[in-house]
């Protein structure tokens, strides 16, 4: 543990400056860009309903959109997987091992 290089805390704050720089650049870009005129939802009704239809590939919405049924299902599976993973990760390891888990299998130690 002692031989490993560590970051100086002071320098970590300095690194944050990069974020400000990025913001500056982005802002400069956005403000100088010309976006021209744009279409809006003006006069449209039932935006939320249309979102619902789009998600299930139903053609009843009044606004243009693609079908998202498959994406919806994939997200469903991912959420389920994430749930399972979270439960697995969160579960404490077997009780008898817990008190002697000083040195972990991956080499970590406490």
């Amino acid at each position: 543990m002692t031989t490993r290089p560590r970051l100086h805390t002071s320098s970590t704050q300095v690194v944050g400056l990069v974020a400000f720089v990025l913001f500056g650049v982005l802002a400069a870009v956005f403000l100088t860009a010309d976006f021209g005129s744009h279409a809006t939802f003006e006069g449209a009704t039932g935006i939320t309903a249309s979102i619902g239809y789009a998600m299930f590939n139903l053609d009843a919405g009044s606004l243009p959109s693609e079908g998202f049924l498959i994406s919806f299902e994939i997200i469903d599976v991912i959420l389920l997987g994430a749930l399972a993973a979270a439960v697995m990760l969160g579960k404490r390891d077997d009780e008898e091992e817990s008190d002697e888990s000083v040195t972990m299998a991956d080499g970590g130690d406490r």
Partner: protein
Amino acid sequence: MAVSVQYYLILSAFVFCVGLFGILTRRNALLFLMSVELMLNAANINFVAFSYYHGNLTGQVFSLFTMALAAAEVAVGIGIILVLYRNFADVDVTKATTLRW
């Protein structure tokens, strides 16, 4: 008169950079997770803004998906943080370096 898209973008960039700043300067894993959430939501702002800009719903639908993904990410992320804490007794991301080299 609708708000110009530039302002949405500036807002989004600002939120993103706040998240980024968090990631760059903090060492607490929980703060990391929050920062990531901020950045994801910055993206969501963009989605919604351009959905409005193009008059197309796809962006809005997509931002919903992003939220779902963010939820999944947080679930897994907190799980990892739990394990991290158990193994290192700390949630400092700089200390978990055993996979390095």
